[in-house]
């Protein structure tokens, strides 16, 4: 396809997605699934830092997701804090736990680290389940407020009749909020990747001994990566809490960790743009199967049979994921583009 046409098409499609929720024919179920996809996009991008950038297997990412979600849920219920205050707090709490877990364990090698993260996420779920005084445990945490944008204090100052107060109802506002969140994380990921930080991570992933002989402090940079990854997971959790307005420890079982890891691997390890595709495919797949199977007169029970088989086949034919190239963001770095031009002309 002509590259120009492709670019145009791409932007047209993006624009179509962007305005889609505004139309009256917009299907709320589709929007719901899209919001879900966006949450997983954020999660997959955040997780990609650990196995993708640093080359460490993390089987417990859902722990940070859960920490973020419950931080947001409890702060909303007990203190009525605004979403915009909660997001940074949840991120901070996620990062703190990331450091607490990462600092003693990130010196472990390979699969030992993986199992420790897995154990951690199980402990998080057990905590959420058992500390009923705090989390209501298995009874779940219902009645979390939706996201609210409240500028009424400002509007009344300007004009007494105005009331700038919006409560998010239905999937449309969450769609745009989710889109904003994905875009934000996307930009942060891109900027981190194409920086001293990102290069240090890739160096650790490619050859940690050589990285340390280049002056990269392995533990420090792994912990930084772990903390940032945890913070992103917690932000996704905070969004989830205010979107579903209900939390339960069941939502953070370790299957979720695997699902997110699958998204990352399917998209391409170390390629955070691929994670977007991975998330879209795996979440959409579950829904597509939900619709297709009855149409083919297959019972609902076969849904995960097909899901598992498709996962195996995808790995069989795309073992490197859909986008295996790493550190692609630097292709858009103006300094390098200029350098390329200079080299080409000389």
């Amino acid at each position, binding site marked *: 396809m002509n590259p120009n046409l492709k670019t145009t098409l791409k932007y047209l499609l993006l624009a179509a997605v962007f305005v889609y929720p505004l139309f009256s024919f917009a299907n709320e179920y589709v929007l719901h699934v899209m919001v879900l996809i966006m949450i997983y996009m954020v999660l997959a991008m955040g997780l990609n830092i650990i196995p993708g950038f640093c080359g460490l297997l993390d089987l417990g990412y859902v722990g940070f997701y859960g920490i973020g979600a419950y931080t947001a849920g409890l702060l909303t219920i007990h203190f009525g804090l605004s979403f915009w205050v909660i997001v940074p707090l949840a991120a901070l709490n996620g990062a703190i736990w990331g450091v607490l877990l990462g600092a003693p364990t990130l010196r472990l090698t390979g699969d030992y680290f993986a199992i420790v993260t897995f154990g951690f996420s199980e402990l998080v779920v057990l905590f959420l389940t058992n500390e009923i005084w705090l989390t209501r445990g298995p009874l779940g945490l219902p009645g979390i407020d939706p996201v609210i944008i409240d500028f009424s204090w400002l509007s009344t100052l300007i004009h007494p009749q105005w009331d700038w107060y919006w409560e998010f109802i239905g999937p449309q506002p969450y769609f745009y909020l989710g889109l904003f969140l994905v875009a934000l994380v996307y930009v942060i990921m891109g900027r981190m990747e194409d920086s*001293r930080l990102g290069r240090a991570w890739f160096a650790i992933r490619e050859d940690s001994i050589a990285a340390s002989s280049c*002056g990269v402090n392995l533990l420090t940079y792994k912990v930084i990566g772990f903390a940032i990854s945890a913070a992103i997971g917690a932000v996704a959790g905070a969004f989830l809490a205010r979107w579903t307005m209900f939390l339960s420890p069941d939502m953070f079982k370790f299957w979720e960790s695997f699902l997110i890891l699958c998204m990352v691997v399917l998209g391409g390890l170390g390629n955070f743009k691929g994670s977007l595709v991975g998330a879209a495919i795996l979440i959409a797949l579950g829904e597509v199967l939900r619709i297709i199977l009855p149409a083919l007169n297959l019972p609902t029970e076969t849904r995960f049979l097909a899901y598992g088989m498709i996962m195996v086949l995808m790995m069989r034919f795309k073992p490197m994921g859909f986008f295996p190239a790493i550190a692609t963001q630097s292709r858009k770095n103006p300094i390098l583009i200029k*350098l390329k031009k200079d080299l080409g002309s000389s």
Partner: protein
Amino acid sequence: MNILDIDSLTMRFGGLLALADVSFHVARGEILGLIGPNGAGKSTMFNCISGVLRPTEGDMLFEKDGKLMRINGYKPEKMTHFGVARTFQNVRLFSALTVLDNVRIGRHCRTKANFFGAVLRTRSQKEEEQRIVDESMNWLKFVDLEKFVFNTAGSLSYGFQRKLEIARSLATEPRLLLLDEPAAGMNPKETKSLIDLIHKISDLGVTVILIEHDMKLVMSICRRLVVLDHGIKIAEGGPREIRANPKVIEAYLGRGAADA
């Protein structure tokens, strides 16, 4: 003044004595050859100096701000920070990354942008990124690899990979450079250009320690040599002395060769 003093250094791996009471010194600006048969402990010596291994006994003293400081037990990244850089016996590049990125990572310890700088793209971060690219390009030109800037490191030929590794280590601004068999696997033409390169590095004022099996190369560029055998220093001196030293001949050719 010496840049490095090795004082009765001993390294044990369980029951195995890899280095036994080895002492030598390295003068600032010189090119020192570290030779010996396979398994003599040469790479172990490099691993100790560069911080990969912590020696069991003895002292390593490194010149810093005009004074000698004990460097036992510092991590590799700290040693790099002090000004010790190295290459590896089996080339260790970041092979999925581009040639330029490899060298840019070498600049890591001389730069300081952090997460916030990266995400907010502050002015100082941008300027630093520009400087990193410029300096990395200079080093790539220095080793004649500017043609391959955007190729992935893994796609280079073996000789070029060796050179890239040298460029990466130079990017850390070392005062002491440890080259571990840089000519291994190179053809004569590449070896010749390597000799030129080592001279060029030395001309920059960088002290070089060289492990090498290619005796012609070693003898031609090193003024002084230290010979290890089974972890023991058996000789030290100029190329001519070493060549005549019966212990060295014995170590390389076996007992009897020296008498003959």
